C-alpha cells in the first residue's frame, strides 16, 4: 500500500556534541600544524576578526594586518587552549587585544607625528552614497578622539553588539570599568556631535537614504 507522503519538513541539525568534536579536531590539527586545520580555522574565523577590526579601527587595510597578526599569534599559542569548544572566543580575545594595541599605537603615532588621527584612516565602506561615507568618516574622526579603551568598548558594544560581560572578559577588565568607559564614550561623542551642526543634517540625509 502506497503510503501518503508526509509533508514533514527536514532540516539538518548539528548537535552541540558534533560542534565540539569539530572544534576539538580543529584544535588538534592546529596544534599539529596541519595545513587543513589552519585553512579551516582561517576561513571560519577570519571574516569575524576582520570585520570586528575594521569596525573598531575604521580601516580595511589595517584590519587585514590585524587579521594576520591575530592568527599568527593564535597559531603560535594554540597549545595553551585547554577547551577546544572555546576556540571562537579564544580567537576573539586575541583579536580584541591586538586591536587595542593597534589603537594605542595609532594614538602614540598621531601624538608623536602631530598628525591628525583621522588622516590615518582609510574607509572602504559598503555604503554607496557619498553622504553616508562622509558621515562615517566624520564619525570615525570623533572616535579617534576617544581613548583607545573607550573607543574599543564603544565599538564592541554598539557595533559588535557584545554584552558588557563579554566585553569585560574579552578585554580583561571589570564590568564596571566597561560601563564607565561606555558612559564616558557616549557622553563625549554626544557632546562632540552636538557641537558639530553638520551632523544633524547628515543624519537626516542618512535616514532618507536608508
Amino acid at each position: 500500500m502506497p503510503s501518503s507522503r508526509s509533508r514533514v519538513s527536514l532540516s539538518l541539525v548539528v548537535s552541540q556534541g558534533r560542534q565540539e568534536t569539530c572544534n576539538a579536531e580543529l584544535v588538534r590539527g592546529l596544534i599539529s600544524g596541519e595545513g587543513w586545520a589552519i585553512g579551516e580555522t582561517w576561513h571560519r574565523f577570519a571574516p569575524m576578526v576582520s570585520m570586528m577590526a575594521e569596525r573598531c579601527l575604521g580601516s580595511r587595510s589595517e584590519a587585514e594586518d590585524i587579521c594576520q597578526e591575530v592568527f599568527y599569534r593564535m597559531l603560535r599559542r594554540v597549545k595553551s587552549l585547554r577547551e577546544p569548544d572555546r576556540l571562537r572566543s579564544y580567537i576573539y580575545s586575541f583579536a580584541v587585544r591586538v586591536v587595542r594595541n593597534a589603537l594605542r599605537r595609532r594614538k602614540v603615532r598621531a601624538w608623536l607625528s602631530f598628525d591628525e588621527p583621522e588622516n590615518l584612516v582609510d574607509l572602504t565602506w559598503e555604503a554607496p552614497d557619498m553622504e553616508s561615507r562622509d558621515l562615517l568618516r566624520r564619525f570615525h574622526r570623533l572616535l579617534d578622539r576617544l581613548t583607545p579603551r573607550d573607543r574599543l568598548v564603544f565599538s564592541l558594544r554598539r557595533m559588535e553588539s557584545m554584552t558588557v560581560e563579554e566585553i569585560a572578559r574579552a578585554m580583561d577588565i571589570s564590568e564596571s570599568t566597561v560601563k564607565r568607559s561606555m558612559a564616558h564614550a557616549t557622553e563625549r561623542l554626544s557632546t562632540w556631535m552636538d557641537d558639530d551642526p553638520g551632523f544633524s543634517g547628515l543624519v537626516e540625509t542618512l535616514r532618507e537614504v536608508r
Partner: protein
Amino acid sequence: MTTSSHEPNPSKMLTALANLGRDGVKRLTRAELDRGLNALHDRMITGEARRRGLFRWSVIGAAVIMSTLAILHWRAASVSVRALAYQIEGGRVVEGGYLREAGHSGMALLFEEGSTFVLTPGTRGRLRAVNKEGARVTIDSGKALFRITPSNDRHWWVESGPFLITVKGTVFVASWEPTTERFELRLQQGSVVVSGPVSGGDLTLRAGQHLVVNLAKAETLITEETPQDAAIMSASAVEPSSVPPTQQASSARSEPAVPQPRTPVTTPPVNSDSERHWAQKLANGQWDRILEDVDRTGVDATLNAASSEDLFALANAARYSRRTELARDALLAERRRFPNSPRALDALFLLGRVEESRGGRLSRAIPWYDEYLALAPSGSYAAEALGRKMIVTKETGGATQARAIAEEYLRRFPKGSYAGTARTLLRVH
C-alpha cells in the same frame, strides 16, 4: 541652547551612526580570504625561520655569556684563592720556611706583583707565609731590604727579632742582630708601623726616618735623614757599628723617641766613578740611586768604566727594577771585561734569568744555563740553573724533553727547590 524637536537626539544619532558603521563593513570575499591565508602561510614560514634564527642566536649568545661568566668567575676565584707567586734567586726555601742561601751573594725573593725582598749575604730568615694578600717574613739575624709595591689589597709583615713591621707600599732596610739585640730600620719611601718592645706603643715611621733600637741598652733612637744623609748612611749602613756614637743620641725607653736632625758623617763622595758603592747601595735597597747614577753618567760610559762588583750590582739593581735590557747589558759587560772574575760566572746564570724575564725569548735562556753548568757544575747557582733549564725546556719543548733533565736534577739535587716539580714531571709522564 535648547534642542529643537527636529534635531536628532544624540543617542539616536549615535545609534544610527553605530549601525551604519556596523552594517557598512563588507565581508571578506573568497579571494581576499585566500590571499590572506597565503600571506599567513608565508608569514608563518618566515616567522618560523626568524624564530629559529633568533632562538639559535639566543642559544649561542647565552652560551657565550655563560662561558664568559664562568671564565670570569673561575679567574676571580683562582685569583682570590691563589697565593702570590714568587721566585727565589741565590737560595731556596727549606723545611720550616727557612731561607737557605745557595752561595755567598745573598738571596732575592721576587714576587709577581713587583715586590722584592733581598737578604744580604749571611742573613738568616724565614718565609713564614705567602698568601693572596701578601707575605710574612722573619729576619732571624742580619739585614734585609724590602721594596713593597703599594697596594690597598695587600699586607706585608716583617718580623725582625721581637719587632713586627707592618708594611703597605714602601722601601726600607731592616736588620736585627740577636747577639747585640740591636734592631735597625731605615725607611726610604712610604711609611711603616713598628710594633715591639719600644715605649709609647707602636711607632709610625715616615720616609727618611731611621730607627735604631738597642734593647740591651734600652735605647730607642729615631733620626731624620735628608736624601744626602740617606745616601751617606746607606754607604755606611752595611756595618751597624759604623754609625757614629755621637749620632746615637740615646733616649731612655721610657721616653718617647724624638726625631733628631742628623749631621752627615765623613764619607767618600757618593757619585765618584771610583767610589760608587753600588754594592752597598744595592745592599741597602737603593736601586733607584744606582740607576740614577747610570742615567746621569750614561749607560755606555758606565758599562765601560764600572768595576766588576759595580757591574754586578748594577745588573741586580736593573733586574730588581725590571729594567731587563740594562741588566742584560751589564751582565754582558761583566763577561766581556772581566771574563775570569767570579762574577763573570755568576753572570752566566743571571743572563739566563734575564732572558726568561724578557718575554717571548724563553729558549734563549737555555744556552746560558748550559754554559754555567758546564763551567761551574758545583757552583752556587748550579741547582737553580738546572732547575730553570728544566722549567724552560718543559715550557718550550714539552714535558717529554724535560723528563731527562728532571731525572738529572733529582739525581744531583734530590732536595733542591725544583725537586717537587721534577718528581711531578716524571710522575705525570
